[in-house]
């Protein structure tokens, strides 16, 4: 009972702040909303008995990624940025995509079992980091390596893009 | 070889933070060393040497007669014209002759303590003493007259000076004074 109340609180704040991310005009305020959203997600991870994921969520996303976001955004001329439109052109395409996404979401949710999320995670890791590490490096070794490879490629791509043109 | 050794030494110095540790080793003894702070108004006070030029004092001779004869030379010598002397006749034997300073005033706000008046005085009546706490609450108070200056100052004339003594802060309507207790003395450093 208490758990459900907390879940609702976290979920509502998470969704609300996620909406706020796209609706704020000021980019810095958007980042702050994103921060709130990420922290709520970390709380949801804790409720799913996965403190490791929660800590990593805060560590990586809140502690590093968002700081970088802020670092970049603080350089922007806020007054100009907040006047600009998100999507150039009319309102038609964004709204159309939005409608398609909403329909997709409704379909997926109606097909899935919502109780699975609300009650408890079926895969109980009991928060043990050891189990998680073993799962990652034995059962899911291929996806793990693929993900790390993709990240490496992205890293190289970023370096190539960011490099100064050699003449 | 020696060049290589030196660069190796420099590298090792960096690795083991030798410079940083030397820095810390300097500040640590200072933490526990004696401080050089003079806790001036509350606890301690510096007694200057005899040559110090502070508040003026008018001297008397051994028989207690005023040495000032009202010659006005100090008034003439004063570069800022802060001394006012009005001579007067006196037959009561207050002074050493029948001419005394009827009025002798100094405006401390204008005085710059150059000591020229002291040099000009023919009878060694005027002397710049060792009192230096001249802050006060009124402008009127900064004009000192003869009667006040005739009183001997807190620090005895024959006291050598150059020491720190125990003191305490006294604030009254006359101004701010740091009363010195000459019995407890401390050498500078």
């Amino acid at each position, binding site marked *: 009972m208490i758990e459900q109340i907390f879940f609702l609180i976290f979920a509502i704040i998470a969704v609300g702040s996620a909406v706020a991310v796209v609706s704020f005009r000021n980019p810095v305020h958007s980042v702050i909303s994103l921060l709130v959203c990420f922290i709520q997600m970390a709380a949801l991870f804790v409720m799913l008995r996965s403190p490791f994921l929660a800590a990593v969520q805060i560590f990586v996303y809140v502690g590093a990624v968002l700081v970088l976001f802020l670092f970049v955004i*603080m350089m922007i001329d806020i007054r100009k940025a907040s006047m600009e439109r998100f999507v150039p052109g009319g309102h038609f395409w964004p709204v159309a995509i939005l409608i398609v996404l909403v329909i997709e979401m409704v379909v997926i949710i109606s097909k899935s079992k919502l109780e699975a999320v609300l009650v408890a995670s079926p895969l109980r890791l009991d928060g043990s*980091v050891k189990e998680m590490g073993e799962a990652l490096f034995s059962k899911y070794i291929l996806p793990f390596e693929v993900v790390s490879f993709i990240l490496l490629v992205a890293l190289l791509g970023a370096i190539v893009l960011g490099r100064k043109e050699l003449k | 070889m020696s060049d290589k050794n030196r660069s190796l030494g420099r590298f090792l110095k960096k690795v083991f933070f030798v410079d940083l540790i030397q820095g810390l080793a300097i*500040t*640590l003894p200072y933490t526990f*060393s004696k401080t050089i702070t003079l806790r001036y108004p509350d606890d301690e006070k510096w007694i200057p040497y005899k040559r110090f030029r502070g508040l003026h004092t008018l001297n008397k001779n051994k028989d207690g007669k005023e040495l000032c004869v009202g010659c006005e030379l100090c008034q003439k010598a004063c570069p800022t014209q802060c001394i006012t002397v009005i001579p007067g006749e006196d037959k009561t034997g207050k002074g050493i002759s029948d001419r005394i300073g009827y009025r002798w005033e100094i405006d401390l706000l204008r005085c710059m303590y150059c000591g020229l008046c002291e040099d000009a005085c023919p009878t060694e009546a005027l002397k710049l003493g060792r009192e230096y706490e001249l802050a006060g609450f009124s402008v009127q108070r900064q004009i000192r007259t003869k009667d006040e200056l005739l009183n001997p100052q807190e620090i005895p004339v024959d006291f050598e000076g150059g020491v720190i003594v125990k003191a305490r802060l006294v604030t009254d309507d006359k101004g701010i004074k740091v009363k010195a207790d000459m019995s407890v003395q401390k050498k500078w450093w």
Partner: protein
Amino acid sequence: MLEVLLIILKVVVITMVMFSLPLPLTYMERKVAGHIQVRLGPMRVGPHGILQPFADMIKLLFKEDVVPAKADAWLFRIAPVVSMIPVFAVFATVPFGDKFTIPFINKEVTMYIADMNVGILYVLAVAGLSVYGTILGGWASNSKYALLGGLRASAQMISYELALSFSCIGIVMVVNSLSLLDIVKSQAGWHWNIFYQPLGFIIFFIGGLAEINRIPFDLIEDEGTLGAGYHAEYSSMRFAFFMLTEYVAMVSMSVIMVLLYFGGWDGPSFIPLPGIIWFILKVVFFVYVFMWTRFTYPRYRYDQLMSIGWKILLPLSLVNILITGLVVI
């Protein structure tokens, strides 16, 4: 019910202690500064200036709380609180000692609020969050010095957080656990991690100095070039909150250092002192070391700061992991 009450009580006690800690710490800092510079430090308020922190507090309480006209008022107001909450939250997992029994009701009480099995990650993650207050405060002030302070804070945080957490991995590899309680327990009886991880400790110490923005890494408030940096526009209680954060962060960094490398409440057995006393002594020692370095070294330049972080500390911490891995295997 009693358990819940106990937890609430512990939270209240720790929060109160942390809130009042800056008072003696500011006094200590000023005294240490004074004596290192052959001065006396505060002397006039109370005997040996012991009431000086209270005088400062009263002064800060009664000053006007200025919000600059063109500042982002809301962010400007919450920034000090944002920076303050994480440093307090760190203490949720900090074990101050093992267990003790309350004499009359015979109840065993643990000297920590929660023993998380990811304690070390939690501590590092949450301690890193307080930089948001700095960044937001710097940005919201709408002043170029404050903004530069905020920018420096964000870049510095990212550079040093990396080396800091990498140096902790060595400990996790040695101890085989992420729980702070296990880490401390594994060091009992002089098996302190400092003897097994000296390189890790050096990296952690330097990274910690940068993380809590103490000299020689306090570029975010660099008086020389930024004139107070991120809190240039702050006054009154909000400024006090930033100061409070700085001191509590200093304590938390010392506490983490003691827990990870110096055996927590483990002391030499020939001196019979309760564990908590050893713990406090060690923490005070590290706080003193932070102050000592502050008044010994000059400040690094910003490019030096970055090159130390990325070119020296980060490779060294990777080397540390490598060596530890080889030894453990």
